[in-house]
């Protein structure tokens, strides 16, 4: 049984690690954020599976913490879209156009 859980956990971990491609290539920051979130969820699932397969103490606590906090990046990102740079009373302008932005993958691969 536990070897099946282990394999499933490893498969999920590898899958979400491959999702890093989206962080690296974008094209937009929204995609990067989604990939980061998949990383969080998949990390939670992998931790649960590995935790019950090879008896990692505290893996469930960590998974709970990750599930609770993994979305903070997304939340702040979206909230930050509406905000302008510091001191500018009127948000909206300046920050909206650069949601997208070309990924520069050649540097990393």
């Amino acid at each position: 049984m536990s070897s099946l859980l282990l394999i499933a956990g490893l498969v999920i971990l590898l899958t979400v690690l491959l999702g890093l491609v989206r962080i690296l290539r974008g094209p937009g920051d929204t995609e990067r954020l989604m990939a980061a979130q998949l990383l969080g969820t998949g990390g939670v699932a992998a931790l649960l599976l590995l935790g019950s397969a090879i008896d990692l103490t505290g893996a469930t606590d960590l998974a709970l913490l990750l599930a609770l906090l993994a979305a903070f990046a997304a939340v702040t990102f979206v909230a930050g879209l509406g905000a302008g740079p510091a001191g500018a009373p009127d948000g909206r302008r300046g920050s909206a156009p650069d949601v997208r932005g070309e990924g520069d993958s050649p540097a990393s691969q």
Partner: protein
Amino acid sequence: MPDFPLPVPLWADIPLALALLVLALWLTATRRDRAAVIGFTGYGLLAAIAWVRLGSVDVALTEAALGGGLMGLLLLTAAARLGERADQPRPAMPVRLLVGVLCLGVTLALAAVVLSLPAPAPNLVAAVAANQAATELGNPVAAVLIAFRAVDTMLESVVLALAVIVLWSFGADRAWGARPRTLDLGPPSPALMLLGRLLPPLGLIVGVHLFWTGADHPGGPFQGGAVLAAMAALLWLARLGEPPPVSDGLTRVGIVIGPLLFLLIGLAGAVIADAFLAYPEGLTKPLILLIEAAKTLSVAVALALLVAGPPELPAPAPARGETAAEPGGTV
């Protein structure tokens, strides 16, 4: 750990380590600040998993709470506040090459050191285990933090309090006494408000659980405090509450109560028990609990205030009427 059909190091650790390195390379090379910061939040999540694989669940919890949660919040707020700024001119190619070679040298030297560590690894596991009973704590890491290396831990909570003071001093003179406003990123979306209403109660439970369970299992004041701070920041982000003004007395008490109590009990230990920061026989566990509770509170307050930023005056004269509903809530 029993044997398994496939070697975990090969399939989990090497990809994880590679992912960390690729992500690190990418976020130093990429062009845009905010993209790099998003990558860094992913990095924090991966690092937490790496720490579990290293057998340090306590560290993994801290890394997840700070690196995965609060750090993303802090840096993405900073990125939103800064906007995209023009890149600074890059130095000439030879300089970059030189720096690259030197950094590679550092890496190679460190890697050589890691690979040539002495074979029977020196450790303090036995020493900690031998004396752990005296602290009545089941978690060896907690015992080290609160008893065996108590000076470190106390000074570290002093550092947190000092950091808040320094941060507050960044504000303009005119703004002294006002509220921090760095997290005030504009009107929240309905989904954010829902999250802000439902998540903090759960986070409160998890935070207190982490603090309480820290005596015998992985967890402790830092992890619990970080979760509580993250929940407070979420509330402020959703505008369901506001950070307290810098002049608020209760907040100041909250910041210093942890280190202060630690210090007082430590000083009392010099008189009652035999040394500074020693705990008297029999009272060890209650005193440790008291210190840890105060420390959890102080860590939570200090971390939340660190994320909230220096005091700021409300944005001058909205002029466009969109944020005009706000002045009622300000000091």
